[in-house]
């Protein structure tokens, strides 16, 4: 349940996971963030909220998503691989689990206007969808570079009635879109709710988004029980941009140390090339977008512009829960390059008939290196489908536009 708590990795009252998290926000955002903090747990615990949330997930989103035994992939890697099919959600990724939860919250808060940031466009599409469903105005900020490389999703958002605003500053990617969304919220504090798309941002966002995404591991447990007669796999693999699909896939296994949790970051052209988004490899603790976390930054504390072929992983930070999982050693953080991800995406397409999102392809690529044994069970969170990435797959590992 989204109200369940982990014993060891729950957020503290002040919003911390270990030393990470908190709410470093300008005073302009304080009333909204504080209000949200003071009501979110009560609201999501209300039976009427749960009823509405779970029935929309079932009838509108299409949950539970299958836990699919990938036979040909398993034969190839000589282990037992299950794919958690978040790509089969309505709108094609895990992002909608969170936007449905947050839109229900926003309605209960009396908000009439929704803003969001998006990288790959999946969160933008999921937000635009939820807004159309609820009849709320929707504005999505998206880096100008990402608008170029994720065109199909821009058009989907527009089709759904959302306004897509290009973020022109900085690297013109996800971080800059987030800055613009925060500026919008500062400017429109009364009527607007900001639906953050990952487990980032000031407390309570990381915990709130984790709870909405935790439906993923809740289902994995029930599905493994049925298919394998066990409650937990040996490994869970997920890609990490901000870390929402990983947080959801890990959540109900956090306290079970027999389950190895593997978070896969975007290595870009290679961790040490200067073109990478591998936050734990390259970052150190710092504050961005309201929370203390690992952050790619210069010695002087300026945020370094990340690089990844995948727009959804092209972010210089990670959610504070992941910073804590990394620092405490509970999860292992690995990185996969652009080229490795491209190969893995194409390989899954040919082997299983599933075209994965480029983000997800990073998690799949790690199967090459995992070395799981024949009898072991590996769950890969298939966070999204790759329709939006066809152009990039087809053109090969070409450079993204310079700016």
């Amino acid at each position, binding site marked *: 349940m989204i109200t369940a708590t982990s014993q060891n990795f729950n957020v503290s009252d002040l919003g911390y996971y270990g030393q990470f998290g*908190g*709410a*470093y*926000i*300008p*005073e*302009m955002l*304080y*009333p909204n963030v504080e209000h949200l903090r003071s009501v979110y747990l009560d609201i999501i615990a209300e039976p009427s909220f749960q009823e509405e949330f779970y029935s929309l997930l079932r009838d509108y989103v299409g949950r539970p998503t299958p836990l699919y035994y990938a036979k040909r992939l398993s034969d190839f890697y000589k282990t037992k691989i299950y794919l958690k099919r978040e790509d089969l959600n309505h709108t094609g990724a895990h992002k909608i689990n969170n936007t449905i939860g947050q839109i229900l919250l926003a309605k209960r808060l009396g908000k009439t206007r929704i803003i969001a940031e998006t990288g790959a466009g999946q969160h933008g599409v999921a937000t635009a969808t939820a807004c159309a469903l609820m009849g709320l105005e929707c504005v999505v900020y998206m880096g100008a570079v990402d608008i170029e490389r994720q065109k199909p999703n821009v058009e989907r958002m527009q089709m759904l009635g959302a306004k897509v605003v290009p973020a022109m*500053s*900085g690297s013109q990617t996800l*971080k800059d879109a987030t*800055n613009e969304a*925060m*500026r919008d919220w*500062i*400017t*429109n*504090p*009364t009527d607007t709710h900001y639906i953050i798309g990952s487990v980032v941002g000031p407390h309570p966002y990381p915990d709130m988004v984790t709870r909405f995404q935790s439906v993923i591991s809740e289902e994995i447990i029930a599905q493994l029980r049925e298919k394998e007669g066990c409650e937990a796999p040996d490994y869970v693999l997920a890609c990490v941009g901000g870390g929402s699909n990983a947080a959801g896939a890990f959540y109900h296994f956090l306290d079970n140390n027999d389950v190895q949790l593997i978070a896969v970051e975007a290595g870009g052209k290679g961790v040490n090339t200067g073109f990478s988004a591998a936050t734990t490899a390259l970052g150190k603790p*710092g*504050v*961005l*977008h*309201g929370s203390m976390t690992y*952050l790619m*930054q210069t*010695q*002087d*504390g*300026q*945020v370094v512009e990340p690089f990844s072929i995948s727009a959804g992983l092209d972010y210089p930070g990670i959610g504070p829960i992941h910073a804590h999982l990394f620092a405490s050693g509970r999860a292992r953080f690995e990185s996969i390059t652009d080229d490795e991800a491209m190969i893995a995406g194409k390989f899954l397409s040919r082997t299983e008939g599933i075209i994965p999102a480029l983000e997800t392809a990073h998690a799949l690529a790690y199967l090459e290196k995992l070395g799981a044994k024949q009898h072991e069970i590996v769950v890969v969170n298939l966070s999204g489908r790759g329709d939006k990435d066809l152009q990039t797959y087809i053109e090969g590992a070409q450079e993204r536009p310079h700016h």
Partner: protein
Amino acid sequence: MNRIERLFAQKPHNVLSIYCTAGFPHLDDTISVLQALEHSGADIVEIGIPFSDPVADGQTIQQSGGVALHNGMTLDILFQQLRGVRDSSHANVQIPLVLMGYINPILQFGVRKFCQCCAEVGVDGVIVPDLPVELYEREYLSAFQEYGVCNILLVTPQTSDERIKRIDTVSKGFLYAVSSAGTTGNVLSMDAEREAYFTRLAALKLQNPVMIGFGIADKTSFDDACRFANGAIIGSAFIKAIGKSQNLPSDIRHFISSIKN
């Protein structure tokens, strides 16, 4: 009494504070901008520490910060530039100086070392827009107190009376009243809502002087703000005025006199 408190004791009305970005328009302009501002009659200068992701700032200040970072500005360099700023044989700037910057560069520099450097070079106060009062009290207040550096906190039209009072008890030097919902660089329009907010602030009988900032761009908006507070802060309009300057002292004199006369 530090320089900020002394200023408000001597001049409780029409206090003019100017925001400039360190290292803008050119890396080494910082000191000459401070000198020109003092000579032209500015009462306080807020020196912005540039940051890559300034979420509370509008385009003008974002861009000036981008230029300053491109020029190579860092906190280390800024403190080097400010060494000697108070010496009568050197820069000889005597008006209160306040550093304004986002928390991350200060954290990476080290909060204690930052406060120590402020005290050493003669910086009187600091404004950190993304450091809320609770976090400040819990984690950083002791360092500020140890070195006698004022932390100047913000309130906004959405801040409740109760919270304004709480912030007022922690804030030192003055209270920074953000004029309206929005980032820096929007132009203030005096309307009924604005008046009600400023009147509400005045009625709270706060212990700190109040300076109104965000959207103060010219004489009209400065005078409007001064009717309700001890003074006002001009940022984006000043940055715009000096961005392409060929003669900083003259352009700065011109800008300040357009506000004061």
